[in-house]
């Protein structure tokens, strides 16, 4: 047993490391061709990561990305493709921001306000995702289509609500528009980071908790077992007594609920209002990270941090005259090469496993070539 687990650990590491090296080589080639010395670029990026601010911001980005990735991963685990995390979190953040900024909230205790805001966001996200779930189980509408459509509908809805006649407030002269700012009691204080002027989001602990809950749900609960089983084999899950329709609805609601959290660290930790410059497109980043981290709670955490760090170091590239699109290219190459590496390792592992089974069964004549 010990031998097998040692092997799986080293194989597990071989894939991401090998892929990362490969991705770096590809990007190095692109850089060299376009006349930018790759080693200097790498040095700049690493150097920038040593800045406490970059580090703190990377952690903050990672927090948001991670939540988004978990939301996507819940769907992936049962072969549901929730492309709608984007719309879900934007609508949720907007409505939650309106609630948190409302004046009646001022009279409530801080903890209750924060809890209500977060809960509201989860409910909105869940409801919005639930529409796709409902359409799938009652009408058989593919969630791929419905969530793409719902993203755009959410955009329109947010634009409609983010209007001074409705939920937004305007500041004279400003070209921005947003919900009423959340007063101090409704905010989540940040964690000071040595040497950085920006704090680490207090809600990084929320992301941590979500990660642990996600792991626990998948590996320790009946619900998680049903979820995974449905993803691995729908027919086998049905035969085992899983009600797939209920599972679709439940996991869509759950995924949407987590998606609702995506905007919270930013909203409660930094922006304190949902306005035009609230970050968009995090749902798509979440897809990439879920895929990169293979839906694994720890893997996604690494992926989210890697992604955040790449994003944050791109400023330094601009400063040294390298087009920062190279970072986007790098992200694409990393996703692809990591996955190819995982696939190659997976095949190799399966071969080893089959060999083990064969050996243990003892029915096999094993010529030397096979043993080697």
């Amino acid at each position, binding site marked *: 047993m010990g031998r097998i687990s040692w092997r799986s650990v080293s194989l597990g590491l071989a894939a991401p490391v090998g892929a990362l090296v490969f991705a770096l080589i590809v990007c190095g080639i692109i850089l060299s061709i376009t006349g930018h010395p790759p080693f200097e670029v790498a040095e700049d990026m690493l150097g920038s990561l040593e800045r406490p601010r970059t580090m703190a911001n990377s952690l903050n980005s990672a927090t948001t990305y991670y939540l988004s990735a978990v939301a996507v991963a819940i769907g992936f685990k049962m072969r549901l493709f929730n492309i709608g995390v984007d719309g879900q979190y934007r609508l949720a953040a907007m409505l939650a921001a309106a609630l948190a900024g409302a004046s009646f909230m001022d009279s409530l205790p801080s903890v209750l306000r924060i809890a209500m805001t977060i809960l509201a966001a989860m409910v909105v996200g869940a409801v919005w995702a639930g529409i796709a779930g409902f359409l799938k189980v009652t009408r058989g509408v593919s969630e791929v289509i419905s969530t793409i459509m719902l993203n755009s509908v959410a955009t329109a809805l*947010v634009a409609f609500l983010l209007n001074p006649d409705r939920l937004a407030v305007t500041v004279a002269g400003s*070209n921005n528009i947003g919900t009423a700012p959340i007063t101090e009691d409704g905010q989540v204080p940040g964690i000071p980071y040595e040497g950085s002027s920006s704090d680490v989001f207090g809600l990084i602990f929320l992301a941590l908790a979500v990660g642990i809950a996600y792991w626990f749900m998948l590996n320790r609960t009946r619900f998680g077992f049903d979820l995974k089983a449905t993803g691995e084999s729908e027919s086998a899950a049905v035969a085992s007594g899983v009600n797939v329709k209920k599972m679709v609805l439940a996991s869509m609601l759950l995924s949407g609920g987590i998606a609702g959290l995506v905007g919270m660290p930013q909203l409660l930790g930094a922006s304190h209002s949902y306005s035009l410059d609230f970050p968009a497109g995090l749902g798509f980043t979440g897809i990439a990270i879920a895929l990169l981290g293979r839906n694994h709670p720890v893997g996604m955490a690494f992926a989210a941090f890697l992604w955040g760090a790449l994003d944050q170091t791109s400023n330094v590239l601009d400063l040294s005259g390298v087009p920062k699109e190279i970072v986007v290219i790098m992200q694409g190459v990393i996703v692809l090469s990591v996955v190819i590496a995982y696939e190659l390792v997976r095949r190799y592992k399966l071969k080893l496993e089959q060999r083990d089974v064969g050996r243990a069964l003892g029915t096999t004549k094993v010529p030397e070539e096979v043993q080697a």
Partner: protein
Amino acid sequence: LTGCGGSDGGDAGAQGGGSGELKIGLAYDIGGRGDQSFNDSAARGLDRAKQEFGIEVTELEAAQGETDAQKEDRLRQLAEAGYNPIIAVGFAYAGPLGKVAKDYPEVKFAIVDDYTPGTDTGDNIANLTFAEEQGSFLVGAAAALKSKTGNVGFVGGVNTPLIQKFEAGYTQGVKAVKPDATVQVKYLTQPPDFSGFNDPAKGETAANGMFDSGADVIYAAAGGSGSGVFRAAKEKGAMGIGVDSDQYKQPSLADVRDVIITSMVKSVDLAVYDFVKSVNDGNFKAGNKVYDLEVGGVEYSTSGGKIDDIKPQLEQFKQRIVSGEIKVSAKK
């Protein structure tokens, strides 16, 4: 004085102020240099200043979907690297800039397109804002004067308060000439979908719809989507009005320029240039500076000669706005 930021102000270059040590850092909003819109206009101002004062320049650009923290970091990196002055283009930098400016009191900052009264802007920040509604008023008046149908259109790229300002001024201009004129309004996309600034196909469809419902002049406050509006106008034998720079002169619009009767020029380049010059000359002034009709911060362009016939009326409106007789509201 036409507000268009041409390169013919060149003789000022002689008095280079001695201080060739300025290092300017400029941070663009999403789109950056090359957006053929206000970022580009800022770039023109920067280029002119660079040429005249012989200074070192570094430009950074915002990425899609980034947070305030990233914007702040961008400014901070510039400040750390010793850039002074630092210019931020776009209202989205307002919050981040406020924070960074406080930590670097010796650095001079400028922000384009934002002045939020009540927020503490600090005495090392210059706010460069524009009276877009005033310029839009004039092109609105031009549209009404040129229109034969009494039916004109407004195509906004993305439905944001900034573009709504253009719409508001334009509508008031139209109504000032023809109170019962119809103004059709369409925004191509809703934020945060900013593709409305980059989708000429959508611009063309929207413009065609307006022309088919009787409009004969359309004001395209839609960034890159404007070219679609002009193409529709050309096909239908109608007229278009450009935005931000004198679009008649824009090389990429050469084949449709016949339909561009005028443009609402917003001289971000002038503002940027002025700001750099003030720092260079040692007479930086903090606070809000409104670039309005009076100082030539906004203007209507006349190249192409399509509105020569109505120029007297437009000049009259201009005088009345400058004198305060007509108050153009920035709100619908």
